[in-house]
């Protein structure tokens, strides 16, 4: 798992990940690249991350992958990422396609609702918390 300030260097990360895995006898490698869309008059997105819990969340997923003889990779941006740049990449390598297809889907979906990352729209150079698009974590409201 790697975190980068600003947009991800997709070419470099893609090549490095593939280079690292290609001779490890995985039959299926599925990368996912998230790209910031030009919508709602934003110039980009911005992110805050809480690393300790992100690390333990990812570690638990890597264990799950290991039990299926698979391997997960992930990269995310911290701070501002302009439109049409990438802020999120993940990938899974598995012995066979069926497991890889299943795992990339469940991993990315769980990432969206569980990873401690906060998203802001960049509008007129201001950061506006994307509250409506965010999901409360499990157990939310404990102190209300």
């Amino acid at each position, binding site marked *: 798992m790697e975190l980068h300030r600003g947009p991800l260097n997709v070419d470099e990360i893609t090549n490095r990940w593939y280079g690292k895995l290609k001779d490890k006898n995985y039959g299926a490698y599925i990368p996912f690249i998230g790209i910031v869309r030009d919508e709602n008059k934003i110039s980009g997105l911005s992110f805050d991350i809480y690393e300790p*819990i992100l690390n333990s969340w990812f570690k638990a997923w890597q264990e799950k992958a290991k039990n299926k003889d698979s391997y997960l990779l992930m990269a995310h941006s911290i701070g501002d990422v302009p439109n049409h740049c990438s802020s999120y990449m993940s990938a899974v390598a598995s012995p066979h396609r069926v497991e890889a297809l299943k795992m990339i889907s469940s991993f990315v979906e769980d*990432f969206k609702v569980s*990873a401690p990352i906060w998203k*802001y729209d960049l509008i007129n150079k201001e950061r506006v*918390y994307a509250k409506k698009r*965010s*999901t409360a*974590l499990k157990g939310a*409201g*404990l102190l209300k």
Partner: protein
Amino acid sequence: MAKVEFLGPINRESIHVDIKNLNDLKEMFKHDNELVEWLEICAVAVNDTLVSSIDIKIGKSDKISLLPPVCGG
């Protein structure tokens, strides 16, 4: 004293509190109007593990984190 940190968009400085459990913290925040709307939607972690019980004991060196709704990617 235990440390309380407010993550992401809550945008507040950390504080130190003298409490015995999370219920004490709930009582302490009850009249903080600015914080009330966050408390409804925030999850709570103690020493970087999400918790689901208000009765969890808090010691002097513990760290409590408030985590608002998330949206990575």
